[in-house]
């Protein structure tokens, strides 16, 4: 629908639409010397920045318009020109004639100004709702490195990325999803370096979403993944702008969702969940060790309880004699089978973890002490669980915190129970069957066409160069090619011609 030239009809229309919207500010005021012509301003309180509006838009508009002759607003001179000449001190203006678009703009925090006799409204970009600025990292903390984190406002998030990549080919492609929430979504990528088929897939999948609302990135993730039934994350989530920028440089796409302090990185493979932003801020030897530890931790978090059950219940003769005796002695007075023992402790641990999230921060640590130390100690001395099981479960828990990605750990936590169940039924055979089930599942996953197990499987697509930044993190100088995510026509990222022999550096 188009705007009417008669202001009162327009006013009536907007009044009808925004009935009972108590947070809306509407004002009609005269703008000609004789007070015969009027203007109408609408915006949402606290969605629009009142300071811009009241300091630099409205007063000047009123003051300058009153100096104009009576018939000034009669076409062909456009309203926009007048307001510009009138000295409006903001640059971000646009004209709009379509009522629906005006409504959407106002709902997003813009201010609409309409005047008598004009079929065009002026939209002033006044989006300025309260937000918490640029917060500090809370879930992906590093020892050395940036501490900025994404916040809930999309524009701030894209700015944080733009500040790190000052290149005109950094594109921020915006879309809207959700019939009612009309959530802004921005795809940030480097044109030319991104793989076109991945970008096309991502755009298509986002465009195909028809839902009433997307409130955070989790819901969006589910819509753009290949296998939404898998417990394993096929997109990576980060709160760190430096991580997002580094991903974009590698040819990946960062999806910024408005109202979410997390940014989605695609494509994501299992290897990417083992990488931390800090890996490139420390010496490569040390970080290679860290990477190795993370992979070992992943195995512990996944398989340790299952392995313990399989070995103690089915194959005690596998272990050296003395260890077998020690374990048997520890379990001597325990009334439960090993599975039940492990399950009790695992349940207790999951309980602690779940409770720890809900508790206010100051109380959280005391729960850790009560739960971990006192209850664990009491359970052992009461003879309900053996000390070895406490060690195993604690080790599993600690190992799960060594992996940088929360969502991958969550998948491991769930898979752990599959391994425990099968190991309890069939010993080592069951343990291996469970591992193979997981491996088959992981091998079947793809993230935007990229095999999830890359580079451990299908590593030859990229000539195995991706192994340089996988289980080990080799020196950056070795990584001349971009990883698999990048468009193969743009695979060189490091030109070593001028670098010369590093040993001869002056």
């Amino acid at each position, binding site marked *: 629908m188009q705007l009417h030239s008669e202001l009162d009809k327009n006013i009536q229309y907007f009044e009808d639409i925004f009935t009972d919207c108590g947070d809306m500010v509407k004002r009609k005021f005269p703008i000609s010397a004789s007070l015969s012509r009027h203007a109408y301003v609408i915006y949402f309180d606290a969605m629009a920045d009142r300071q811009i509006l009241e300091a630099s838009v409205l007063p000047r508009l009123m003051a300058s318009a009153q100096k104009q002759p009576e018939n000034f607003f009669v076409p062909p001179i456009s309203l926009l020109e007048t307001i510009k000449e009138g000295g409006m001190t903001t640059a971000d203006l646009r004209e709009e004639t379509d009522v629906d678009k005006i409504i959407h703009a106002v709902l997003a925090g813009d201010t609409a100004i309409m005047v008598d006799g004009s079929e065009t409204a002026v939209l002033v970009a006044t989006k300025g709702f309260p937000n918490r600025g640029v917060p500090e990292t809370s879930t992906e903390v590093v020892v050395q490195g940036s501490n900025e984190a994404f916040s809930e406002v999309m524009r701030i998030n894209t700015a944080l990325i733009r500040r790190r990549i000052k290149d005109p080919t950094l594109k921020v492609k915006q879309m809207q999803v959700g019939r009612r929430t009309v959530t802004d979504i921005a795809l940030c990528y480097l044109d030319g370096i991104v*793989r076109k*088929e991945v970008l096309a897939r991502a755009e298509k999948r986002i465009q195909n979403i028809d839902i009433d609302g997307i409130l955070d990135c989790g819901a969006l993730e589910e819509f753009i993944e290949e296998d939404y039934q898998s417990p394993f994350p096929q997109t990576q989530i980060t709160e760190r702008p430096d991580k997002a920028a580094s991903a974009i440089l590698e040819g990946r796409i960062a999806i910024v969702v408005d109202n979410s302090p997390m940014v989605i990185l695609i494509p994501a493979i299992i290897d990417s969940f083992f990488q931390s932003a800090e890996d490139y801020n420390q010496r490569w030897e040390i970080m290679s060790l860290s990477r190795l530890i993370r992979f070992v931790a992943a195995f512990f978090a996944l398989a340790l309880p299952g392995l313990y059950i399989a070995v103690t219940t*089915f*194959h005690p*003769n*596998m*272990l*050296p*004699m003395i*260890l077998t005796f020690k374990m048997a002695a520890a379990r001597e007075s325990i009334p439960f089978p090993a599975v039940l023992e492990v399950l009790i402790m695992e349940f207790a641990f999951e309980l602690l973890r779940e409770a720890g999230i809900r508790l206010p921060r100051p109380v959280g640590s005391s729960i850790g002490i009560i739960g971990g130390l006192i209850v664990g100690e009491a359970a052992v001395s009461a003879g309900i669980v053996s000390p070895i099981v406490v060690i195993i479960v604690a080790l599993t828990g600690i190992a799960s915190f060594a992996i940088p990605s929360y969502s991958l750990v969550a998948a491991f936590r769930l898979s752990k129970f599959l391994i425990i169940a*099968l190991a309890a*039924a*069939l*010993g*080592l*055979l*069951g343990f*291996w*069957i469970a591992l*193979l*089930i997981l*491996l*088959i599942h992981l*091998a*079947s996953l793809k993230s935007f*066409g*990229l*095999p999830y*197990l*890359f580079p*451990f*499987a*299908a*590593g*030859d*697509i*990229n000539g195995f160069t991706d192994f340089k930044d996988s289980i080990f993190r080799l020196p950056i100088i070795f990584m001349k090619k971009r990883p*698999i995510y990048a468009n*193969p*026509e743009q695979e060189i990222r490091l030109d070593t011609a001028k670098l010369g022999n590093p040993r001869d550096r002056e």
Partner: protein
Amino acid sequence: MTNTAIKHDGFALNNKISLRQLQALLFLEIFGFGVTALPRRVAESAAQDGWIAVLLATAMIIPMVMIATHVTKLAPGLSFHDFASKLLTRPIGIIISLIFCTRLVLLAAFNLRIFAEITRQTMLPSTPFAAVFVSMLLLAAYGAAKGIETRARMAEVLIFIVLLPLIFVFGISGRDIDFTNLAPVLASSPASILSGSFSAFFAFSGVEVLLLLGPYLSRPKDLTKSANKVIITMGIFMAIVTAVTIARFGPANIIHQMWPVLKMMDTISLPGSIIDRQGALIMTFWIISAYATINAALFFSSLLLKDVVKRGKHSYYILGLVPIIAILAHLPENLVSVYDYFNLANSTFGLTTMVAIPLLLFIIAKIRRFKRAEY
């Protein structure tokens, strides 16, 4: 298609595997199961010259591989059944496909039974066969249902898990080995070596799936070369394993070991290890080999059935084949009759699919001057 063309075609082609993946698949499918009983079987006739028999068998299998891959490359876009039907009319195509399918089902059943026997002996003495059958078959079925791409990526990961314990064990086995057990070289009669190599020939059971792979290769042109490479590598590996195992136990003792390679892994003393017995090592090697072989047989037999019936997904046929394989695996009363049945199946169905069918297709294609497809 050049190498770069494939790289530019997205990350990976859908439902296609690379030649590297093919090699990993073949290695896993054939090697593990082929090698476990191999030293005993060749030592039975060729004694200490068993390893020569293995090398001879490798030399015998190579021409068959070349013929099979040549046939596959004639029409890489066509499924085996379609190709055979085109060349020999549809009824004969169906018969050949069903023979092929039977062979693979028998192979799966045999391997499943052997797997269960070994599991009972080494790990789970009191667990019933049914539990082992069901769990392993369902695992293999799950893997097969996921399709060729998943199988290929699995193979690339699994091959390390299989090879590492093997290399580890054979690498440190030096101190226990008495190489004088291998002397005198070539003392056995040519006839006994030949008969040993006939047994060793069937260690390569499963190689015939090369005939079925046509539609799934991203670069069919180099199929022959990569298949030969992996078969020769495998042959050399098998010969080394055979030689080391015979040297370890001696040709007289080895024929009393049902699965000498596993026995060897189990009894070698590892210096300073926390694992007292290498049950875990055997299990990794053994479970994964069993999985790979049964999975391959299930996958390809279901594909053949699907192509013959021309309806539905291959995973439906897997579901139908699972109980059949379980029942077949349960039929023989004891281990001796298992091997009797297996020898019988090998010399009938095995020879047909490994030698007769590729030869037949090759000759008919030559006579009918079947033009090689463009690719």
